[in-house]
């Protein structure tokens, strides 16, 4: 990174916070700053703010919100921003997704499908990982 006000190709930013819904605001704020500095326009920035919130909700599904951390990683590439959100340290508390949770999960998936170019979610016995990719309309700042 040469310009202190921008993020360039390959730049990564990490954020870790307790896996609680009320702290998802942190992810949205960081996503705003990173999107702006990675050259996304204001509409794309708002899409990413919304999307990263859904990403966190996807990762939180299946946890009981009393264990673990949400680990976010933002990676700037030549034409996109990749964000991954992993629920870590919650293995003993990972829950099967309930019917309500499934509905919430589906809604988040549908919202992500409308806001970003690619997204996904993977859950195994020890962690949950959700990710998204949003391509930039304009050139890299």
């Amino acid at each position: 990174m040469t310009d202190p006000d921008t993020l360039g190709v390959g730049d990564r930013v990490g954020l870790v916070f307790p896996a609680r819904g009320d702290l998802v605001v942190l992810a949205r704020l960081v996503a705003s700053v990173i999107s702006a500095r990675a050259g996304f326009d204001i509409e794309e920035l708002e899409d990413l703010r919304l999307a990263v919130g859904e990403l966190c909700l996807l990762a939180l599904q299946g946890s009981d919100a009393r264990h673990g951390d949400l680990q976010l990683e933002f990676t700037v590439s030549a034409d996109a921003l990749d964000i991954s959100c992993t629920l870590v340290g919650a293995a003993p508390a990972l829950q099967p997704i309930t019917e309500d949770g499934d509905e919430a999960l589906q809604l988040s998936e549908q919202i992500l499908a409308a806001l970003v170019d690619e997204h996904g979610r993977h859950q195994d016995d020890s962690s949950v990982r959700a990710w998204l990719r949003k391509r930039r309309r304009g050139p890299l700042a």
Partner: protein
Amino acid sequence: MTASGEDGPAGSTVEREAQENTPLPPDNVERDAMITKHLGLAQQLARRFLHRGEPLDDLVQVASVALVKSADRFDPERGVDFAAFATRTIIGELKRHFRDKGWAVRASRRVQELYLELGHATSTLTQQLGRNPTVAELSAATGADEEAVIEAIEAGKGYRAASIDASESEDDPISARLGHLERGFDIAEDRYLLDPALATLPMRDQSILRMRFVEGLTQSEIATAIGVSQMHVSRLLTSSLEKLRRQMGPEPAQ
């Protein structure tokens, strides 16, 4: 694992495909039932856009109309899930709503206005409380949610001149980029050029400039001395320096 890469963002493949299909007739019972069943979805999606400063009622209305459009365009024969299709359409319409209202321009203005409002609220609350207010208190005073307050504080810094940003750096308060200005103030105080410019500022602003650049007090120390918040001092310094710079700067080339 799922991926939506083939469909792309809102308003693309699925929506276009559905538009090309035969819609359900407007008086179709199935269509009405679909709309009724998904009104909650429209409301939930509208709520997701609340932080952009539009009233919830307006957003729900836009989302509900979009839901009806979704039902009109939806073709069950295509095997596409209605909720997924409607979500794309509703989000597309909500985004269009903001675009049509020139939201991008208004958004930056709104942040600037909130930043100014926060300055006033900070001063008032500091005097009332006898201490700097918390974000929660600023949120209550301005009616903006806490996230918006934090965002406005952060964004507000970006609206200032670059040299003033530097003056607020925690590591190197002012010397790095305003250092020569400080020396300039020392020297220029006795010069005819600065005196008239300084004299145009209110006495309080002159005092603050003197405390900051002559006596070397920090913004927080000045804030304590004159009984306002650090944020308010910062804003006054920014404003004063900009006025001085305008008055003392060279005439633009013709």
